């Protein structure tokens, strides 16, 4: 923490909880209001950041976090309110002016040019010391200095597409530090990281706050928020619904502030007797998008009444595994996928569905639903050819309507009507439409990828309860979840994937975050050095 070398200008928030009100305030956003046609995106929002603190901005999608940050970076102009930086009114009209003022951003979707080198990415937009020529040698030298000072190791000469996700994030942070950012906004920085990478990131962030930099941490992962924050401001529907410090709150309280009602964070999982193996995967090999092996010899069983969750850093074959089972990606010769005792490894998707497979895709808007189609059309997308919806090649609109109305009601889809295009629904409601469609076919095996990514907590809670209910009626579910919390909370067994292989299968009662995290990172102790024996019983 920096010492008090400036007069106390933090009086404006003297009443707020937390310590260190003698620490100078870097940024104050006061009474920010921003209206869009029909939407109040921000309403009288106050946010201040002191030197050396991590101030978390917590809220659901659409709560107004990104609007507030876009105002900070000059992409939107507030209708009311003002932004003060070190006590002076700040007028910013573009992101580059924010950078000049010492405010940097690490975007959730990295703002990197994959075909350029690390040094080129850092140098982009900066004045070159050699005039019209690039000065990459000098830039590389400073990158090395910065990376050594902050523990951000990365080779300046390598092209960004060759880097791992964790390394790319380091490049993003280096970009901000290179531009001398004193205040750094981190938008969902942990979304793509392994638990170990998250720990490393937090060490790096703490080193930055120790130098007096202020951080705005945007996240919805409550345990990370509790671990990292100095202060927490919660937004809901564009308004601040609470400001607190970790010591005075709990995950449950934070979730309640975000949603506006009590939320069950860990779903109840009543015991269910596992049935017979319904999905049996043997020696599954699948190529990735670049033609190299993405799934390299996976054996896995999922029994009726069981949820098997896959834990793994994204890019270790989970996606390809799900797509191979769903029939969207060809399997290599010798692979077997037994669905209720029929080998479907070479079957088309229609056959797989007829045999009892349901699939919730990771890509909601491209594989899961047709954005321009109405809710009604999306709800029958799989069955529209079935006899109950089609007679002699003509759609039976009455039956389709009845079915759609019933599903919308049963799955609590918030939509103005069943004729509303799917694209105008929120992520959570689109996901409910997809889930309703898939579950209405009464599948015996479900493949569910990222069911709650980008979904609000309320919908996530509902989706979880539906998956648990499905487990209760004997469906076998292969789950590729959003994060470790979800995998631990929902699964009966957890299969850890690393580099295309299942390296361990752990019953959920024995699951420990740290142990799974190490396995995900490819660190195996002697016992689990080779892939654990995969057995049918949970």
């Amino acid at each position: 923490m920096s010492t008090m070398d400036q007069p106390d200008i933090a009086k404006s928030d003297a009443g707020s909880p937390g310590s260190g009100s003698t620490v100078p305030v870097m940024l104050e956003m006061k009474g920010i209001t921003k209206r869009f046609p029909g939407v109040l995106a921000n309403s009288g929002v106050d946010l201040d950041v002191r030197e050396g603190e991590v101030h978390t901005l917590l809220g659901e999608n659409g709560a107004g976090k990104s609007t507030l940050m876009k105002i900070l970076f000059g992409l939107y102009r507030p209708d009311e309110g003002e932004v003060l930086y070190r006590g002076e009114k700040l007028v910013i009209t573009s992101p580059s002016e924010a950078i000049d003022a010492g405010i940097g951003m690490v975007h959730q979707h990295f703002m990197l040019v994959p075909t350029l080198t690390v040094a080129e990415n850092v140098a982009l937009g900066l004045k070159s010391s050699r005039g019209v020529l690039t000065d990459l040698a000098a830039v590389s030298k400073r990158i090395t200095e910065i990376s050594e000072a902050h523990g951000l190791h990365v080779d300046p000469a390598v092209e960004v597409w060759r880097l791992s996700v964790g390394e790319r994030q380091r490049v993003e942070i280096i970009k901000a530090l290179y531009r001398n950012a004193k205040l750094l906004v981190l938008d969902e920085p942990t979304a793509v990281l392994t638990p170990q990478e998250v720990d490393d990131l937090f060490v790096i962030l703490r080193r930055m706050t120790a130098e007096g930099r202020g951080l705005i941490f945007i996240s919805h992962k409550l345990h990370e928020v509790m671990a990292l924050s100095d202060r927490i401001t919660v937004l809901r529907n564009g308004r601040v619904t609470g400001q607190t410090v970790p010591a005075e709150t709990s995950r449950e309280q934070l979730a309640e502030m975000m949603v506006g009602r009590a939320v069950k964070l860990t779903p109840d999982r009543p015991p269910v007797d596992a049935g017979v193996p319904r999905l049996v995967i043997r020696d599954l090999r699948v190529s990735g998008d670049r033609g190299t092996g993405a799934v390299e010899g996976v054996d896995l069983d999922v029994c009726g009444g069981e949820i098997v969750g896959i834990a793994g850093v994204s890019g270790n074959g989970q996606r390809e595994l799900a797509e191979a089972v769903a029939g969207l990606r060809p399997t290599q010769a010798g692979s077997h996928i037994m669905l209720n005792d029929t080998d479907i490894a070479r079957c088309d998707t229609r056959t797989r569905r007829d045999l009892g497979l349901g699939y919730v895709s990771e890509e909601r808007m491209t594989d899961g639903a047709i954005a321009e189609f109405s809710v009604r059309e999306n709800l029958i997308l799989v069955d529209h050819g079935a006899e109950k919806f089609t007679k002699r090649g003509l759609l039976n609109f009455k039956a389709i309507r009845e079915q759609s109305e019933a599903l919308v009601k049963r799955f609590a889809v918030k939509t103005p009507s069943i004729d509303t295009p799917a694209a105008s629904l929120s992520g959570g409601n689109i996901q409910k439409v997809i889930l309703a469609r898939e579950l209405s076919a009464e599948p015996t095996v479900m493949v569910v990828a990222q069911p709650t990514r980008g979904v609000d907590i309320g919908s996530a809670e509902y989706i979880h309860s539906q998956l648990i209910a499905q487990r209760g009626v004997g469906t076998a579910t292969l789950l590729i979840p959003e994060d470790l919390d979800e995998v631990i909370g929902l699964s009966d067994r957890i299969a850890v994937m690393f580099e295309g292989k299942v390296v361990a299968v752990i019953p959920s009662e024995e699951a420990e975050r740290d142990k799974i995290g190490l396995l995900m990172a490819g660190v195996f102790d002697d016992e689990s050095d080779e892939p654990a024996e995969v057995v049918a019983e949970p």
Partner: protein
Amino acid sequence: MSQFFTLSVIVSVVASGIRLATPYLLASLGETIGQRSGVLNLGVDGTMVLAAFAAYYTALKLDNLWLAVFVAFLVGLLIGVIYALITVSLHAAQGISGIGIFLFGLGFSDLLFQVWVGTPLPIPSKLPPLGIPGLSSIPQLGDALFRHNLMTYGAFLLVPVVIFLLQKTTFGMNVRAVGENPQAADSLGVSVERTRVVAILLGSSAAGLAGAALVLQGGIFQANLTNGLGFIAVAIVYFGAWRPLGAMAGSLLYGVVNAIVLQLKAQGTIPRSASDLAAMAPAVITILALVFLAGRVKAPAALTKPFTRH
């Protein structure tokens, strides 16, 4: 066939291949810059034919070749301004806008030709070949490589210049960045619009020069003089994997294939009735090359995507 493989024929085919490659090379180098910035310009052919007419008319009336080249350059630049306005400032779809430019250039050049010239007359003097002292007297090699006009030399000299521009200058880095991830470039204060506008202007001016090279080497203008040459230049950019050296290789391939076809026709090796079939060679090569390259090289990720902040 035997008379084809004499040394003198090969030397003349290589020499005319290089000469014929000049318009392809100028146009595809320019288009490479534009596409690296994320802008596809399908109007190259129309730009070339209009610039070619401008150069032709200037040369016809004033008998000043360098003024003709300059006028063609200006026509290219002007069309570039229009194209930049349509696609960058107004965010119009690039594919259809380029086709509009093509149709405009094709029709307008013919109209001006009919109104101002009417009967095709050859220009008083074509671009003269210029031997490079010393090198041009090397037996065979000198005639093949070092006895060309200044536009041909200039086009080939542009290859290293464009490589340097793209790889070593800040502008080139910006071009590569806005063609791959304009959002990232924008977030760092690189003006996506300005970068793309300059890239379009460079590309379109180069197309203007290509038109000048075509007409001043040939010496005469007619309606649709380019006959799809500008579209082949666009194909060469894909063929060359968006690299200047690739564009040079592709242009040379087309130039030499054209030269061979012309030679075979002149010798009567292929019957006149089959000459249209022979003229298909470039198109066939293009299709084969694109099939072969499909999936092997990656286009700039933001190619054809208008940029808007959101």
